[in-house]
């Protein structure tokens, strides 16, 4: 009996989780959105850099 209780106690220590309705792909999606956000910023940064390099060229001329 004692052994059985010990096993039951151990079972309570390690509950099993049901993942039936979880979204395992959500981590990929959030990481993709985060990366996209920074690439979006990079787009403006590139534009600014191009603008300055062009005006620097014009000054040289």
């Amino acid at each position, binding site marked *: 009996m004692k052994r059985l209780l010990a096993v039951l106690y151990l079972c309570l220590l390690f509950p099993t989780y049901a993942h039936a309705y*979880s*979204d*395992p*792909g*959500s*981590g*990929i*999606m*959030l*990481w*993709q*959105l*985060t*990366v*996209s956000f920074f*690439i*979006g910023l*990079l*787009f*403006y940064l590139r534009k600014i850099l191009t603008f300055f390099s062009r005006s620097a060229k014009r000054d040289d001329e």
Partner: protein
Amino acid sequence: MTSKARSFRDPAGRLFFIGNDPIRQVFADAAAGCRKLIGGAFFQDLMCSGQVVKTRSLVSVPGHLSGIARDGELLLAHEAIPFQSFPAEWPIQMLQAAALLTLDIAEQGIGSGIGLKDATPYNVLFDGPRPVFVDVLSFEERDPLDPVWLAQGQFMRTFLLPLLAASKLGVPLSSVFLTRRDGLEPAEIYRMITPLRRISAGFLSTVSMPVWLSGKAEAGGQAMYRPRRLQGKEQASFVLKTLIGGLRRKTARLAGKGSSGPTRWSDYCRTCSYDQDSFQQKSSFVDQFLQRCKPARVLDIGCNTGHFSRLAASRGAQVVAIDQDAAVVGTLFEEARARKLDILPLVVDFARPTPATGWNNEENPSFLTRARGRFEAVFMLALIHHLVVTDQIPLAEVLAVAARVSTRYLVIEYVPPEDPQFQRLVRGREALYRHLTREHFEKTAADFFTIVQSSQVENQERWLYVMEKRNVQ
């Protein structure tokens, strides 16, 4: 001949086969969009370059589908790919080629306002060593302001993560694709690697970041999937192209290197018992058969480095070459692709051929279902002792299956129990195989085949045979 749908997950249509010819039924809701896509320059260019399967719309409904097609629907006929194969049968290099094709098409579509709504290896088949995108219903119109490729997650699960697991951790692709429809989750790979590897360049952004963010993402719920629109087309296109470029770099980096190393079979040609003269003799025996009988389709079982597959392809045959060793199959694929040889190399263990998988066990037919009656010639060279000894398959069974797969010829090598390679496999169980004499071999073969030609290999007790099926006149 069939009128049962083999592809049905897409709500926009279904795929049927009439004999070997694929016919796609596009439902009325999607018909107009699909007609526009197929007539457009983007799709026509992809067809011309061979990246997408040749497709034409049908004017009349084929007899077998007359009860299925309804008014307003579109029926498309696709060019048949000679032999269907699935990702569970591909070496790393083939999954990589399919991934790069998917990315190329996704990128080319950005400028034309067309995207891919899914990104899975099942959208790609191989015509010889050439990957062809076959799922025409994967294309959809995109909002040019949308910076998100929703199918990117699926691309990661079904292409990038299995490639990563196979090339860096030695996980066989067959074990991924035979047991799962949707590839690997980052968490599955995360559990396989050490804490130090989790922060290494190869795994950090592909595996660890998505795992670390998953809790937060789950808490955020469905809001994450709401449509997003940027201010300008140019910015959205920049974001997408940069993301796809990143995926391409990661995919290309995983070329079939890493854990593969020299395997039992990749150095077989150097260690096997053939000297140069007898190998030359074997080669000319097979070549004479090819020139005399001119088989149009050949199945090379246990192809190893693919010497005989190359020979058959050079004589104009369409070859499917199978071997259980992914390393040799991968090398043969690279060579066939570079030299444009009509060889489709697949990782298939003939003793345990790919089973039927998918819904109702009908989405992906088994290897033997696909192979049965497809090949005019079957090669079983230096193979029989592996099947009979290692896999313990009775000789009569081996020949019976060969007779079911071949429509006419079998080119087979008899390896006697005294042969050093046979002895290597026997490991002290000689008594079990003593009866496998040449007389016994010929007598067993006679139940299924007639011997057309035979020749003893120089300096050896091995014999080569060309056999013809009994019921073929």
